[in-house]
């Protein structure tokens, strides 16, 4: 594998700079929310990490389809990268949401539709990683991973839409005028700027991390091939 591409080095630097600016916008630029106080400032990052998690799972879906169509190993490697990054960031979304819940609802956890569907989604993709590891034969493992990623993706739109489908106390950030949601979030101009900047920042961070994880996947694949060659 080639040494680190210059594009990846540039993305690393851009990610760090964007993260710094995004934190400044969340902590200083955006005004304090009068009903929730400072805890509302984690909202910008909380939503963004959830968004990044879902991008990871979407990538796994696309890679799964492309693997089944082309049979090329690279799509399997990309799919695993998508699931791993998705899992990490959805986990961050859930635990930061729990901190928010404690501050605003006075409970760390509540069994409401968004939290239930997000947890189920997380468990589905944890199972993906565990089940993959139990399959030794590379082609079978890749085929299984592709089909699982396609079927498992059903949980992603369900999680996203859960606060619109069912009555819930979870705030609806985008299109808060939707029926079915009890609580909307009215953001000021500066809050919206901080929010969309954080979404952009974490999208860039996501691309950077996915690129790193895909490179890791190719290395892992090479190790597997070398080991198989030695056994033969």
């Amino acid at each position, binding site marked *: 594998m080639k040494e680190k591409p210059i594009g990846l080095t540039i993305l690393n630097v851009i990610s760090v700079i964007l993260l710094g600016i995004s934190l400044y916008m969340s902590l200083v630029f955006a005004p304090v929310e009068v009903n929730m106080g400072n805890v509302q400032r984690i909202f910008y990052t909380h939503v963004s990490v959830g968004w990044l998690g879902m991008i990871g799972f979407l990538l796994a879906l696309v890679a799964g389809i492309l693997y089944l169509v082309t049979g090329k190993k690279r799509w399997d490697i990309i799919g695993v990268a998508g699931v791993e990054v998705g899992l990490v960031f959805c986990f*961050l979304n859930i635990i930061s949401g729990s901190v928010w819940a404690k501050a605003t609802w006075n409970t760390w956890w509540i069994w409401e539709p968004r939290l239930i569907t997000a947890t189920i989604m997380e468990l589905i993709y944890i199972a993906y990683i565990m089940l993959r590891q139990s399959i030794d034969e590379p082609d079978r493992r890749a085929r299984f991973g592709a089909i699982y990623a396609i079927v498992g993706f059903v949980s992603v739109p369900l999680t996203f839409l859960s606060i619109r489908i069912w009555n819930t106390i979870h705030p609806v950030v985008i299109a808060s005028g939707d029926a079915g949601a009890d609580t909307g979030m009215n953001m000021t101009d500066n809050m919206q700027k901080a929010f969309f900047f954080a979404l952009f920042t974490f999208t860039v961070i996501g691309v950077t991390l996915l690129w790193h994880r895909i490179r890791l996947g190719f290395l892992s694949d090479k190790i597997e091939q070398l080991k198989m060659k030695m056994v033969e």
Partner: protein
Amino acid sequence: MNIPDTTDFMILGFTVIFVPMIIYVISLATRYKKYKADIIYLENEE
């Protein structure tokens, strides 16, 4: 209007996001180094 003081929760919220994120980035770097070393070892063994 009294704004509730939820600064502690804000700090906790950012901590639970950024500490695991940093750990994940470190794990990517560590695995990369390990895999590189494994490849060199296996290629020499061939």
